[in-house]
C-alpha cells in the first residue's frame, strides 16, 4: 500500500512534467499528422521518436522486472496494459477522434496543455471532450457504444489472448520492436535530429522527452495504481471529472484508488489536473501566458470538435496519447488499428476544413 501523499504527489508530478514538456517542446500529434499533407515532416519525426523511445523503454522495464507494485510488502511484477482488440470500436472511434482533433485545434493532450497557455477556446474544447465522453459512456450514445464494443477479437488456442503485433505472427516481441524502431529511427534521422534548435527544445529533444515521460508513466501507474496502463487521456479525463462531479473516479476493476477528504481518485485522474498547471509554469517562464479568445464561430467549432473527440475517444478506447503513443508502444493490435484510423480521420477533416476552402479561394 502506498501512502496517500506519495500517490497524490507522484500523479501530480508526472502530469506537471508532461505539461511542461509539451508546452516547451510545442509537441502536438495533431499537427504531426496534419503537416504530412503539406510535406512538412518535422513534428511527425518528433512523434515517431517519442514512439520509438516509449516502445523500447516500456518493453525493457517490463522484461527486466521493474514494472510492478507492492502488495503487503511483497513485490508483484506487472505487465504493460495492452488493450483488447475491438475492431469496430477501434476503427469508428479512431476515425471520429481523428476528425475531431482538427476541428478542436488540438489533440487529447494538446487541448489540455493549451488551457495553461490561456486560450479560453481550449477550456471549451476540454468541456466538449468531457461532454462527448460522458454521453457515449453513460448517456444518449451508450447504445451505439455498446453495439460497437461488442465484437472483441482474441487469439490463441483458448481464444483468450489479446492480439499484439508479435503474437499474431508468432515471433519474439523484440524482433518486431527492433524492426519497427529501426524504421522509425531511420525516418527520424533524415530530419537531422542532432542539430541544435535556435531556441527552446528542438523537435528531437521534445520527442525524446515525451517518449521518456510515457515510459515513466508506465512505471508509475504500475507502481502506484497496480496496473501499468501508462499515459493516456480519455479514461483519466473521464475519471477526473467523475471524481469532481460525483465524488468517485469509477476506475476500472484492478486500479487501486485512494480516497482523500471523501473523494475517491484514480491515480491517472490526478495527472490530468496537473498537465495544464505544468504548461502554465512553462508558459509563464517564457512569458507566453495570456488570456485570449477566438471569434465566436471558432469557439463553437472548437466545442463541437472537442465533443467529437470525446465520442470518438470513448468508442475507440483512447486518444492520440492512449493509442498513438502509449498503446502503440505496447504493440497491441487495437492501438495500431485505432492509430491508423486516427490518422485517416485527421486527413479527411484537414481536406474538408483546410485544404478545400483554401483551394476554392485561389479560384
Amino acid at each position: 500500500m502506498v501512502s496517500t501523499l506519495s500517490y497524490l504527489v507522484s500523479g501530480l508530478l508526472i502530469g506537471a512534467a508532461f505539461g511542461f514538456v509539451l508546452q516547451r517542446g510545442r509537441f502536438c500529434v495533431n499537427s504531426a499528422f496534419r503537416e504530412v499533407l503539406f510535406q512538412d515532416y518535422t513534428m511527425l519525426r518528433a512523434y515517431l521518436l517519442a514512439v520509438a523511445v516509449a516502445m523500447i523503454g516500456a518493453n525493457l522495464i517490463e522484461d527486466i522486472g521493474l514494472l510492478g507494485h507492492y502488495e503487503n510488502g511483497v513485490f508483484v511484477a506487472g505487465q504493460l496494459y495492452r488493450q483488447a482488440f475491438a475492431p469496430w470500436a477501434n476503427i469508428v472511434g479512431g476515425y471520429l477522434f481523428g476528425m475531431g482533433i482538427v476541428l478542436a485545434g488540438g489533440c487529447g493532450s494538446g487541448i489540455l496543455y493549451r488551457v495553461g497557455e490561456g486560450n479560453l477556446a481550449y477550456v471549451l474544447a476540454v468541456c466538449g471532450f468531457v461532454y462527448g465522453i460522458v454521453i457515449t459512456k453513460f448517456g444518449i450514445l451508450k447504445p451505439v457504444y455498446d453495439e460497437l464494443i461488442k465484437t472483441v477479437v482474441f487469439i490463441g488456442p483458448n481464444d483468450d489472448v489479446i492480439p499484439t503485433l508479435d503474437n499474431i505472427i508468432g515471433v519474439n516481441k523484440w524482433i518486431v520492436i527492433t524492426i519497427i524502431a529501426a524504421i522509425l529511427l531511420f525516418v527520424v534521422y533524415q530530419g537531422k535530429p542532432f542539430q541544435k534548435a535556435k531556441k527552446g527544445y528542438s523537435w528531437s529533444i521534445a520527442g525524446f522527452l515525451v517518449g521518456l515521460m510515457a515510459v515513466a508513466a508506465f512505471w508509475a501507474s504500475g507502481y502506484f495504481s497496480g496496473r501499468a496502463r501508462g499515459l493516456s487521456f480519455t479514461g483519466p479525463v473521464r475519471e477526473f471529472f467523475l471524481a469532481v462531479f460525483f465524488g468517485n473516479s469509477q476506475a476500472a476493476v484492478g486500479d487501486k484508488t485512494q480516497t482523500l477528504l471523501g473523494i475517491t481518485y484514480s491515480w491517472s485522474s490526478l495527472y490530468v489536473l496537473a498537465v495544464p498547471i505544468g504548461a502554465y509554469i512553462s508558459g509563464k517562464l517564457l512569458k507566453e501566458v495570456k488570456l485570449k479568445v477566438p471569434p465566436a464561430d471558432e469557439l463553437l467549432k472548437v466545442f463541437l470538435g472537442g465533443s467529437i473527440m470525446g465520442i470518438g475517444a470513448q468508442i475507440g478506447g483512447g486518444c492520440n496519447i492512449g493509442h498513438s503513443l502509449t498503446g502503440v508502444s505496447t504493440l497491441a493490435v487495437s492501438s495500431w488499428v485505432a492509430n491508423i484510423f486516427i490518422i485517416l480521420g485527421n486527413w479527411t477533416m484537414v481536406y474538408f476544413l483546410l485544404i478545400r476552402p483554401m483551394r476554392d479561394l485561389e479560384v
Partner: protein
Amino acid sequence: MSIKTATPDQTLDTLGRVCPYPLLLTKKALEKLSSGQTIKILCDAPASAEDTIPRFAEKQGYGFEAVKLEDKGYWELFIKKS
C-alpha cells in the same frame, strides 16, 4: 535592410485564433502578396509563432524575422515574400 524595420504592406491579426488558423491565414495572405512585399503578423499561439509559421517561411525561402513582445504576450512576425 531588416524586414521588421520596413513598413509592412499588410498587417494580419491572428490574436486569439486556435491552431492551425494562424498558419493558414498567413499562407492565404501570402498568396495574395506579390514578390518583394512584406507582411506583419500578430500571433499569440506559441506553437504557431515559434514553430509552424517560421518553418513554413523557411521552406518557401521567404525572409522571416520575429519579435516576441513579452509584456503583451504575443509575437510580431515579419515575412518577406520572394
